[in-house]
């Protein structure tokens, strides 16, 4: 896929990799994600010395060790909080958070929610394999209902959380979904995220071939995927299917429904048109709810809007107050408003 802007530095994808041995299981979807991250960064031309990858705990969170950038492998769920501190003191850096479904939505849910609602200028990549991998196969908050795992041998009973719905619910200014096995699309989405100013939340469907193999087969198998996923493109109608003849229409009661073009007089003009720049998160939220098998699952950019960035607003306050109060005078500050002299 084409580069979106001219690179600032000219490096090859391999230049973004560290010399640490990559220690994910053979066949893990994380390999593809790591490869596409390097490609996307090379394509947009980011300087590795200006980049920081920050992660929590879990398989996905090993990623910073494999990058030739700065990095912090943090503690479970807290990567957005570490990133918040760094972001506030350093406007110049390009900060990426790497998290997983358990790290980001279970133990670290609070931090994710607040990093998003503040619109911090950071990227958040959530590798969603719908399982706990590093701890060997327990149920995850994104696992489907009735899932049998080592911690739910009789089937899980808690409802499944939908990461993109959460992000849009917190009014993330950039929300996208992509899949480890669709490298071109993955690279495109990462480039889009790289260019977003503000919080960019990217959910990456990722296959755990050890504990949840085939979780996204319906999205990745060549024979069925065109009928089961729909690629969102700004300003374009929601069309999908092997023959490109199916679409999403808004039916009665604002309920989305799958329709076949040409059947019952349905034409292209009846379909929903995607608008990633809509100020209201309503359309993006509705699209994030579309789930296989009732619907094709959307991939692509749900939402990409411009909004004031938290760290920039803080900086603006510093500048405004410096202008109002004048240059700092530490002695005056220490002396306080009502000092007295003793001779």
């Amino acid at each position: 896929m084409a580069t979106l802007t001219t690179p600032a530095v000219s490096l090859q994808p391999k230049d973004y990799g560290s010399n640490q041995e990559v220690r994910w299981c053979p066949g893990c979807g994380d390999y593809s994600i790591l490869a596409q991250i390097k490609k996307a960064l090379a394509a947009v031309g980011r300087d590795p010395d200006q980049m920081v990858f920050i992660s929590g705990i879990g398989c996905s969170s090993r990623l910073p060790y494999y990058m030739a950038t700065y990095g912090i492998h943090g503690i479970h769920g807290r990567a957005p909080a570490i990133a918040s501190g760094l972001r506030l003191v350093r406007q110049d850096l390009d900060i990426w958070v790497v998290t997983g479904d358990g790290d980001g939505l279970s133990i670290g849910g609070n931090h994710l929610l607040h990093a998003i609602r503040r619109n911090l200028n950071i990227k958040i990549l959530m590798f969603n394999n719908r399982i706990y991998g590093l701890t060997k196969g327990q149920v995850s908050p994104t696992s489907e209902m009735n899932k049998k795992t080592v911690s739910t041998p009789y089937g899980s009973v808690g409802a499944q959380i939908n990461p993109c719905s959460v992000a849009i619910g917190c009014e993330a200014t950039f929300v996208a979904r992509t899949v480890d096995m669709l490298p071109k699309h993955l690279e495109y989405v990462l480039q889009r995220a790289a260019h977003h100013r503000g919080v960019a939340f990217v959910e990456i469907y990722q296959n755990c071939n050890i504990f949840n193999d085939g979780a996204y087969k319906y999205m990745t198998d060549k024979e069925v995927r065109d009928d089961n996923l729909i690629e969102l493109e700004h300003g374009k109608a929601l069309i999908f299917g092997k023959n490109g003849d199916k679409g999403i229409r808004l039916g009665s009661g604002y309920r989305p429904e799958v329709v076949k073009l040409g059947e019952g007089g349905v034409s292209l003009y009846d379909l929903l048109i995607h608008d990633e720049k809509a100020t209201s998160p309503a359309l993006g939220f509705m699209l994030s709810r579309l789930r296989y098998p009732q619907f094709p699952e959307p991939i692509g950019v749900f939402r990409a809007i411009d909004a004031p960035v938290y760290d920039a607003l803080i900086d603006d306050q510093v500048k405004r107050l410096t202008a109002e109060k004048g240059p700092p005078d530490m002695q005056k500050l220490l002396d306080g408003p009502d000092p007295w002299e003793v001779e």
Partner: protein
Amino acid sequence: MSTTNINPPTSETSTFKPKPIAEITSAIVRFAGDSGDGMQLVGTQFTDATAIFGNDLATLPDYPAEIRAPAGSLGGVSGFQINFASSEVYTPGDTVQTLVAMNPAALKVNLPDLERGGILIVNSDAFDATGLKLAGYTSNPLEDGTLDGYQVHKIPMSRLAKEAVAPAGLKPKDAERCKNFLALGVTFWLYDRPIAPTLKWLDAKFGSKPEIRLANELALRAGINYGNTAEMFQVHYRVQPAKTAPGTYRKIRGNEATALGLMAAAWKADRKLFYASYPITPASDILHELVKHKNFGVKVFQAEDEIAAMCAAIGGAYGGAFAATGTSGPGMDLKAEAMGLAVMVELPMVIINVQRGGPSTGLPTKTEQSDLLQALGGRHGECPIPIIAAQSPSDCFYAAFEAFQIAVKYMTPVIVLTDGYLANGSEPWRVPRVDDLPRIEVNNDIDPETFQPYARDGNLARPWALPGSKGLAHRIGGLEKENITGRVSYDPLNHETMVKLRAAKVAKVVESVPDQKLLGPDTGDLLVVSWGGTYGTVRTAVERMQAKGASVSHAHLRYLNPMPANLGELLKRFKRILVPELNLGQLLWMLRAQYLVDAKGLNKVQGRPFTIAEVMDRIQRTLDGEDD
């Protein structure tokens, strides 16, 4: 003693007849009322006037945990105590000499602390059937002999305030609220305090509400005139200014001093201060103070929780800021995991714990030396962190400043322990000159050719390589790292090497810790060892015992980890060791464990400081051989 029933001043008595002034050397005054009565405010005004007048002083606010406890109830009583003198003052004092009680509940709660024969000023208007019932009085203490033996002054403050502020045109309810300034006026007269600082404060506070400003001034002046003219007071008092070292002075509270210490440290290193915190009593005032100073480039982050605040501090430190976080005990519990990460990644930052009564929510507004052992060991694994404890409100400034000096020199998080008593207490402070404060040298200029993330200098500190630097890209994290290279390592011997290196580094901080000094002879029958906020009380108690001829000395520890190099040797020069603490013996445990000495404890966990008398009594009993 005299129980004078008094009527409001009449036109005859208001003729100006100055009453005699008695010179005294010190006084302890407590204002007590309902938490809605504005007692903290009048206490602060009295303190400001006293500080500017030039007395040395120490204050102790004591307020309920609820913002609005039921009006008139015992649980809703709020108090503010000030001890001021013409010589040095180290504590807010034990027994109160003048008590202002705005309602029956305040009287009931505070009367036990008033010395026999002391002055009691009460708002008699509040002693109605409802007020008495709320306080649990079955008969009126103003009339039933309860107050025999005190100099009682019954003043109908509510009524007088309403009458005095009539020209301001307030609604009756608002007018009645000015009674606290009437009470303040009476005490101003009683102790001959200057009125100007309070008038200046009123100008600043109510500049846009002239009627409120006027009403408060009228109430204040009415109180002063009342004292001067009413026949209840025969004499008033003057405490001459203290003879203190020349310089610029201000009044400072502990939390303010902590905030300024953090800022001054960043200033002396040409760094930006980053303070991440989650609101918690009694630490929030540090956050409130720092956020005022954005023009100093201070970045303040009210995080979503305590964990996030600690993590944000780590992120800020990685980015090169002077990063700090502040909290109290329950917040320290939550920060523990991230503090472990801070130790592992070896980044400089300061963690302030304004201790309060625990465990759990405990006593949020009350003081306790609750968390020394938590600071020492409250994290999993071998996780050493240097600890400094402030010893007075103004010392919080130096504790915070020194914490950054150590943090940067040794690339380590540092814990500063203050407490609710220091945080909210205040005292006059001879303000240091910024130029006299030491520079804090920071080195981020690292040669990429030789850079290794976990190479160490003479202090065992690793390099502080900042993201964005050319050629220094490296990864840090919670997993054990290979010595020198910083690569992830599961090697068993490497882990032991790294555990020992981190311990050796914190032990090496002792080189930056001054030798322990003693108050008193360096050998004798008894050494009293204290730490943190009990300094003033213990020092005063020891001084008084020394004046009585007792063979007792005092060591007050500011550095708890590592402890001063000469401490073990000092301990062995005394026959007995007594460790007074507002806990069940945490320093005691450390001293016994580290130095194998048979020290004994004086322990109190009532949410209140020691009294001087309590410490003196225990010293006497120890000297008498009670523990032998």
